[in-house]
């Protein structure tokens, strides 16, 4: 008797199934968000150093590579926002009496509406 057979779970599982791949992309957004935060700190630092340093940085940010990185970071951040709001009602379901509020209602009320409000306030507040 050799006893029960153990089979390893595939080590490359995260590329093997659409659901796993979506999960990995969702998690990897954090690399871009984290990278952007580091950039944001640099940007703030340069802003504190005075106009010369600030304009030097802004000049560098017109470089196509910098723009491309920002576009990538934006896509990642959008994917994070959307997946986060869509999962919110699953993590924190809301109930009225016997009925659980539809996921879409919770996602809009607790995610998308505040998102629009915050984004609008930021862009309007600075660009008006």
């Amino acid at each position: 008797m050799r006893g029960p057979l153990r089979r390893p779970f595939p080590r490359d599982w995260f590329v093997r199934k659409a659901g796993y791949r979506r999960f990995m992309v969702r998690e990897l957004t954090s690399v871009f968000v984290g990278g952007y935060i580091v950039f944001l700190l640099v940007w703030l630092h340069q802003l504190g150093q005075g106009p010369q340093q600030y304009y030097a940085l802004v000049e560098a940010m017109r470089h196509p590579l910098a723009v491309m990185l920002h576009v990538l970071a934006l896509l990642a951040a959008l994917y994070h926002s959307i997946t986060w709001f869509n999962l919110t009602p699953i993590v924190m379901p809301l109930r009225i009496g016997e009925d659980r509020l539809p996921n879409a209602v919770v996602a809009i009320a607790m995610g998308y509406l505040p998102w629009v409000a915050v984004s609008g306030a930021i862009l309007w507040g600075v660009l008006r």
Partner: protein
Amino acid sequence: MDDLLRLRGNLDDTMAKRMITLEVFRYRPDGDDEATIQDYRVPYHEHWVVLDALNWIKDHADGTLSFRWSCRMGVCGSCGMMVNGEPKLTCAVFLKDYYPSPIRVEPLINFPVERDLVISMDDFLAKLQAVKPWLIRDEEEPPEGEYLQTPSQLAQYQQFSMCINCMLCYAACPEIEGIPDFLGPAAIALAHRYNLDSRDQGQSQRQEALGSEEALWGCTFVGECTAVCPKNVDPAGAIQQAKVASTKDWYRNVLLPWGKR
């Protein structure tokens, strides 16, 4: 009417001549060093599920093939296997969804294989028991007859009570293997189900199991457990909700250590 029936019979006969290949995982602990894949040609019927084909093999082709099954209707939870790499109840997947391609049938991944398609459930049962999936009351006897519950109290946990312990969720979870102490989807969903039950008073007892190192936190919310669940239990949701509850419990313990229940 007779003509119709005869026609139907003829049609069934022609269908029966069509065949489909099942590539079945074989492992005999008393003989094999490792697993092999054995091909079987099985008659194809449109209304057959994979389990019907396995039973045909067992009855007509190879009596040594071992697999678990019972109800044939998605209630008992014993016929879960990997079908073309996906955890499925074999009583619920039709041959017609794969025909004419061959179908690969393997035992559920993340479990030790006892023989052929039969897995060992020992680890799962130990985890299930650890979360005490039963009503816990402070007093021994129910006061008078049964405990009363309103429909809205029932609705709190009903979804999580539909679990049939088929273990498909464990086979879908990429974290199970690497984290032996992770309780896994079904066990946590059941723990959550009893914690949400208005008749239950055992949350603190269950928290001992749920609050320990990797019990809950092995989960990174991949969500595939929910995707494969044949009963729409949403174990992934249950785990995240249990994380929220466990986090509140953690802060309560840190901020109010003297206020222990």
